[in-house]
């Protein structure tokens, strides 16, 4: 509930800022048109009103929340060591690394690490499976459907180009 309160409050501040930002950032529109800033302002005004209503509801219900459901240092610590948090970090790292390492190394690393997170303990089996799946996805999408996959930069780009050339001919 406390997290929900913070989340809603953060949204209210952000969207409130956006409302004023768009009014200042764009030129004022004429009287005979609906300007570029007016449509987002209508949306943001409604959004802020509804967020205030929602915040009121949250604060009203906050008193009835049992002690065990309240945000404590212990529950925060538990979250930061949970599978969910590690999963989120892994997915975020994947999205960042993709541009630098390219598809093949990132896919291989991600498949291995996420399957480990989901309980796969045999590293050898996990490596072989990840390698096979990476190869299958690459062949299916790059060769089969001619869909470009990220190549990465530097040495990883050269590796991807070499592989693509070798497989195309």
């Amino acid at each position, binding site marked *: 509930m406390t997290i929900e309160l913070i989340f809603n409050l953060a949204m209210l501040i952000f969207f409130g800022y956006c409302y004023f930002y768009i009014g200042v950032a764009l030129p004022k529109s004429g009287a005979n048109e609906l300007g570029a800033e007016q*449509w*987002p302002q209508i949306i943001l005004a409604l959004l802020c009103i509804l967020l205030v209503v929602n915040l009121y509801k949250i604060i009203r219900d906050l008193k009835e929340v049992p002690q065990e459901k309240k945000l404590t240092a212990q529950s925060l610590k538990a979250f930061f060591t949970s599978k969910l948090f590690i999963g989120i970090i892994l997915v975020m790292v994947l999205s960042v690394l993709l541009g630098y390492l390219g598809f093949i190394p990132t896919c291989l690393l991600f*498949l291995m690490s996420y399957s480990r997170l989901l309980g796969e303990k045999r590293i050898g089996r996990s490596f072989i499976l990840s390698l096979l799946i990476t190869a299958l996805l690459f062949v299916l999408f790059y060769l089969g459907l001619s869909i470009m996959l990220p190549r990465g930069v530097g040495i990883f780009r050269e590796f991807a180009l070499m592989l693509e050339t070798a497989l195309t001919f």
Partner: protein
Amino acid sequence: MLQTLTMGFGIVFQPATFLFILCGTCLGVIFGAMPGVSASMAVALALPFAYSMKPIVAIAFLVAVYCAAITGGGITAILFKIPGTPSNAPTTFDGYPMAQRGEAGKALGVSLIGSAFGGLVAAFAMALISPQLSAVALKFGPSELFAVSFLGLSVLTCLDGGNLVKTLISGLIGLWLSTIGMDPMLGLARFTWGNNTLLGGVEMIPVMIGMFAVTEVLKQTTNPRKMDDTDKSGGVKTEFPKLKEFLSIKWVMIRSSILGTIVGILPGAGATIASFLSYTTEKKLSKHADDFGTGCIDGIAASECANNAATGGSMVPLLSLGIPGGNAAAIMMSALVMMGVQVGPLLVRSQPEYLASVFSSMLLTNVLMVIISIFVARIFAKILSVPYSVLGPIIIMLAVIGSYALNNNTGDVVLMVIAGVLGYLFTKMKFSAAALVLGLVLGQMCESNLRRAVTIANGNILEVFSKPITAVIMVACVLMLVGPAVAPLIKKSRKQDTKV
């Protein structure tokens, strides 16, 4: 009509043409089932094959790919909660819960029957009343198109009736997201904060994939659940609905097919809007609205009938006026133009074999795709028997490829991941991911048409809403918006009356 049918069958049942349609259907179902390969992308991928064909055969082949791709998208929507094409997103709402409780086969069966039904209704509508439908569609100016898109938004209130405020907040966030980037009228940058990547706007597909697929994997990471419908060989048996079940959804299918055809005809609308609109309308009309979203066959039928019907609908303005109703129709039109065919209002009159070819190809494809989809679904369903420690990461990698393939841009992958994490937070806090996606889908259409209408009316808002078609649709919107708030009050007063 009979003449068109005879002429069309004469074309499509020639051995070579039949083989091309069969191949096109196979390709379409497989492409559609691949996350990130939208129906229009499937048509574009099939285009090189069409260059070597005669124009009449080529259009029949491309229509087969298009129709089958929309159907194929339902397979992964049901099995993995990854909508193969954006128009299959509403199928995940009920298809995936059914798959989770061991009814994947039944969900697939309803999806296939719904798709075929919607496709066939649209094909007949196209052949019978193509010119008339086009004439009606031409009466839809910006104000009418705004009213249609607002109608889509007004059904937000019934996506999750239990959390009305949160559903509306989610829908408005979606609408706000659609305003990021270049303004559709003047090209002014909005909410980009000087970042060039944001100029292109927030892409719908990565948000959709993130909110549905990545969120689901994150949920399964903390609380894994098993699917029970796999047979000993590790597949899912597609089960067609029994006669009683089929009859129970007959009106859902008829209404959704008609709605899908109409929305498909409207320029700029298309299969995605059709399926969302149909899903929410059926939820509104249903006697058991609470079952929607928990694994209800009505929801799958509504979504799949409408998106397939929209494919037929989008062919109507193409054939009768030479105006493509959507992206896929535009690709088909460009293929025909490259082959030297003059697409325009005279095409149907001077060369009726084109209408006949499209009509018959749609009929044939809608039958063939049911058979082909059963086999494709079995292959895809084999993946379900794979342990989740392997399947979960594969789903995320498919989501990554699906997002990247859109613009060959890793920024879309980052967007997809952010959407996935936000989607998880949304689910935990009981906001509605579906409402956010709906807002994002309809946002730009809503804004650009309203602004255009206001400019045409010289700033007079009253004039915009006083046009007959607009006024009728807007009244329907108000009823839909106010309905959920007023209905309990009416019930209460009736109860009090009976007590007295």
